[in-house]
């Protein structure tokens, strides 16, 4: 009942192929859900449908009780559905401080102001620096993003998402491409996300999935084949089949 995010019977065909076939997924505030699935399972299409980059053929997406199925990406963000990107998307010539300040101003509908400056707004600057310190990148606040390490750029992406004060957060492979030495910090940042935020993480790294998720959803060939606890997912026969194909059978026979 208290779903903040509710996807019902979502369907998308590309040509004759059902890339997303009757997918339903609901999340309550505070949920930590991992969406996994082999390559080509339709995870990216699902993300695009949910964020509004693609329109579904049928089905609905509801955000805090409001039907947003026909809305584009920007109005969905303004209603609290925020995503991060699998490959970092940042403004390479701008500093983390500018990024976060812009996101805060955007959230407050003040990003169109022409006769002010974020640096002259103490409340924006304080929030910006508080957020950057929370993610441990405050010391980089005034370096251009092109000069900071990839792991730190991923942390900045999280800071940007948080600056928008989302209700539902979609993390698209938050640790992808990050060197092993930095993943712990990113995991920590994800563990520290606000408790009332509903988080859906799309991830390949199963260690991360098991540490993060209280619920795992498995997508294969456009359909949800499993929705349950992390403990149960490894034992599920259909999941093993989807991931390992005939090898799973071969092993069970042998």
């Amino acid at each position, binding site marked *: 009942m208290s779903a903040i995010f509710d996807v019902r019977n979502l369907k998308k065909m590309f040509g004759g192929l059902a890339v997303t076939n009757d997918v339903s997924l609901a999340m309550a505030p505070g949920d930590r859900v991992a969406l996994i699935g082999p390559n080509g399972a339709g995870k990216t299409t699902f993300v695009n449908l949910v964020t509004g980059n693609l329109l579904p053929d049928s089905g609905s997406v509801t955000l805090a009780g409001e039907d947003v199925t026909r809305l584009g*990406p*920007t109005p969905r*963000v*303004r209603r609290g559905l*925020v*995503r991060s*990107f699998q490959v970092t*998307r*940042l*403004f*390479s*010539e*701008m500093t983390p401080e*500018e990024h976060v*300040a*812009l*996101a805060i*101003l*955007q*959230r407050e509908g*003040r*990003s*169109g*102001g*022409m*006769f*002010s*400056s*974020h*640096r*002259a707004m*103490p409340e924006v*600057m*304080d929030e910006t*620096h508080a957020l950057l*310190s929370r993610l441990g990148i405050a010391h980089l606040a005034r370096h251009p993003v092109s000069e900071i390490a990839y792991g730190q750029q991923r942390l900045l992406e999280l800071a*940007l998402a948080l600056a*928008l004060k989302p209700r539902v957060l979609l993390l698209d492979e938050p640790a992808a491409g990050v060197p092993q030495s930095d993943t712990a910090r990113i995991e920590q940042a994800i563990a520290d996300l606000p408790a009332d935020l509903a988080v859906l993480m799309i991830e390949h790294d199963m260690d991360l999935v098991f540490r993060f998720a209280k619920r795992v959803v498995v997508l294969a060939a456009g359909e949800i084949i499993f929705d349950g606890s992390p403990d149960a997912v490894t034992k599920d026969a259909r999941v093993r089949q989807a991931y390992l194909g005939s090898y799973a059978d071969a092993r069970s026979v042998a």
Partner: protein
Amino acid sequence: MALTTNSGAASLTGGRLTRDAIGVLAILAVAVLGYFLFPNNLALLTRITAIALLVLSLDLVTGYCGVATLGHAALFGAGAYGAGIAAAHFGITDPIAMLAAGILAGALAGLVSGAVVLRAHGLPQLVLSIAIIHLAHEAANKASGWTGGSDGLAGITPDALLGHWQFDLWGRTAYVFGIVLLVLAFVILRQIVRSPFGMLCRGIRQDPVRVRAMGGSVHGTLVKMYAISGAVAGAGGALNAISTQVVGLDSLSFTLSAEALVMLVLGGTGSLYGALIGTAAFMWFEDVVSAANPFHWLTIVGALLIAVVLFAPKGLYGSLAAVFERRGRKAP
């Protein structure tokens, strides 16, 4: 912690204001120098000032927002014809009112051409902008009842500026008027480019997808910037109409659009200083070289451009700024 960041912010804002003051003083110093060095050439200096407004305006959309355009003179020409038609056909001969007419016409032209050009990206965008300048040129040519067609729009006789200063034969009033206008535009634009709106524009240039993911409106922001850009170019056009007292089709030409882009690249995109330096350098160089060698001056200008693009790809100002930045970082 909060205290240190705040005082840091304050001192930084202070630093920026100082830098702006230096910028304004530099413009004024160059203007005064020009006045005394070339007292018989004030018409050229006023022309440079008008074109500087056009190049500043182009920098807003190309340098700050990443919009590719070869049709920006449409905004300049709209301002020139706006001011000229107001004077020649409606008897609005007060220079400030003519300027207002030019700014308004430029902003309108900015809205219209922005609405068209922003439909596309990359090369198609460039082609659309070329189509716009040709259409505008042809429309002005055909509507000769209003614009004077290829003969140009004459009969523009502006009143004394503020009822006091006549636009004299030597062009002193026009020159001072132009410099005041340029300084005003510079100060306003410095503010706009560092505002949240300006930051959003820079963000759009670097990654529009990220801006959308932050809930930002890409198209709306760009259209707004186009209108502002049109107002600035329109002011330049109006200045040209007031100072020369004639408006020709060349103010609405592809050639002028392309030259404005060349000046911007020469000075360095994405910086107001770059736009100013590029305009002054190009037009001064063009004047000197064409006087020294009337037959091969275009070749020499071409060679200069090739040299700048090859050896200072960020433009005169951009490359210089990069050198200073590197030194500044090594020093502490």
